[in-house]
């Protein structure tokens, strides 16, 4: 489990490419409380949605509140998993394992990519 968590934390900007300067860069924080099934599901879902709609212009920062509980206080997190859209402003927050894609898109205000056809 420990290795898996490390894996989650490490996994940022999956393609390793710098973001396109023209497009708006998305900075997302995923807050989890340890590597539980909900956290894993949330990461998978978020990753999938980002790949589909924000390919190349997003950054996911996974924060494990087990390790840094004071971050929950600083960032006003009580329910986990939670995703906070730090960029673009305004800040938005959604909770849950992100299995409801429609709600994730609405909650984070992501304009669905046309070619994928949501």
């Amino acid at each position, binding site marked *: 489990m420990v290795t898996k968590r490390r894996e989650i934390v490490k996994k940022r900007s999956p393609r390793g490419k710098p973001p396109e300067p023209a497009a708006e860069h998305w900075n997302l924080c995923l*807050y989890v*409380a*340890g590597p539980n099934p*909900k956290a894993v*599901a*949330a990461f998978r*879902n978020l990753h999938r949605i980002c790949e589909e709609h924000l390919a190349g212009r997003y950054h996911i920062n996974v924060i494990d*509140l*087990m390790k840094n*509980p*004071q971050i*929950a*206080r600083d960032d*006003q*997190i*009580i*329910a*986990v*998993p*939670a995703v906070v859209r730090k960029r673009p402003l305004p800040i*938005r*927050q*959604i*909770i*849950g*394992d*992100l*299995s*409801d894609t429609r*709600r*994730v898109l*609405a*909650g984070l205000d992501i304009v669905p990519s046309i070619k994928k056809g949501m």
Partner: protein
Amino acid sequence: MNILRTRYATDWSSMKNAAVTTSKGLRKAPTGIRGLDEITGGGLPHGRPTLVCGGTGCGKTLLAMEFLVHGATEYGEPGVFMAFEETAEELTANVSSFGFDLKAMIEGKLLLIDHVQIERYAFAETGEYDLEGLFLRLGDAIDRIKAKRVVLDTIETLFARMTNQAVVREALHRLFRWLKNKGVTVIMTGERGEGSLTRNGLEEYVSDCVISLDHRVLDQSTTRRLRVVKYRGAMHGTNEYPFLIDKNGISIWPVTSVQLKDWTSKERIPTGIERLDAMLGGAGYFRGSSILLSGMAGTGKTSVGTTFADATCRRGERCQFFSFEESPSQIVRNMSSIGLDLQQWVKKGRLRFQTVRPFYFGLEMHLARTIRLVTEFDPQVVIVDQMSGLETTGTPLELKAAMMRLIDFLKMKGITAMYTDLNTDGNALALTDTAISSLVDTWLILRDLEFNGERNRCLHILKSRGMAHSNQVREFTMSERGIELKDVYIGPNGMVTGSARVAQEARERALQVSRNEEIELRQLDLKHKHDLLEGRIAALHAEFSAEESIIERIIQHDRQHEQTLGLDETRMGRSRKQDAVKTGHNLIGKNGHKTA
């Protein structure tokens, strides 16, 4: 099912643990709130959650905050305040008026305020979630300052913000179990619901202690009330206790907490009126007793009260005088007319006046002020003039309860208290009197007697516990010499007072004078008779002695005559040669002849 089973298993084990501590005696976490610790027998259940519920603005947040502030500053138990409604800044500002410096406490790591800002998640719930973040946050806050106390104000907000109520309920169950395991004492607040203690049934999570707060308006005055609905494993007061929020925070004066544990004294203190001392078994009131002085308007209640105050100050003791009728300067001026110089005692700091109009505050506030002033000044005597003024501030029942608490409070402190009470209907036993009559030790009645075209004041002792006291009615006069009590005359028309008494006294005096004269005359007469008798006796004596001397002279004369006769006979016998024996016979014969 498996999860459920394990949960119940842990529940059972934790309950067993709790039972062990109960058998050793329940540990209490004192709240430091005046009165609340008395009602709960020492405080809230230590290491367990307590629910404080009530409507808006009834003081839930303040009570919770005081619990933390007192805990941190007085009992060495740092606390975490998890605020779901107000920010740390707002909370700090709100309680600063009570003298709580939260900022300093936060800096000193005695307090940690975590403001939980919950967004409306209604449209942002995208799947399964739990409230682990809350646990981690709270856990971190507790560990950070080694907190022993936690306030959740109010966790119900979660229900309003989260769509998935099942998640919230599950989380709360876990939260309270977790907090119990951590051994922290928790207050959670809850808004009052319709027909239930809280809107979302928070009481089902808290099985140990529930306190209900209330804020009611009755006859345009509001009273806050507190009630311990439930306190598992401990005795607690069950009544509704009025409480007050003033500049020192919350204070509660429980009615029944006193349990008559007041001390009693055999020491007597003079009343300031000599005859009254005499009537009260010769020594005055008992120290620490409560004295009720009731009477109609103008019967001299304030005068008797101030006389007692004056006597107290004269002994070098302190006296606190509460007046709802007159200003201090007015009392001082008026009492100078009966020869009392109260100003000197005010200057020396022995006498303190507190005058305020009854309707200026509610009953609770009056009581609170009274108790605060008494605590500050620490007097030996308290005089309340007159408590019927407070009737306007509450219902009779509330007034009685308040008076009981005041009387009990003063008794516990060993303060001698005098309460004056106005009767308006001329009936000495008015409602307010009878309400507290059982609480007072000495009850003096002042009465107006209308007779012979004038009104006169009378005083008698209705009761005085623990001392032989006079059952007589005394007439009560006030002059520049002060208050004096005089005997009343009982005539064929009943009691005689005032000018009728003066006339009666004059009549008695006149009667006395004539009686005295008569006695003198008789004595003179007797003396005269005595003298006369003496004179007669002397005359008789003189007569007798004169006769005596005459008779004696005759006897002597006779004896001489006889002797001469005897000599002649002997001489003759010698000449006739008679023998000696015959001489005796001849002598007797001669004597018998003589007396015949």
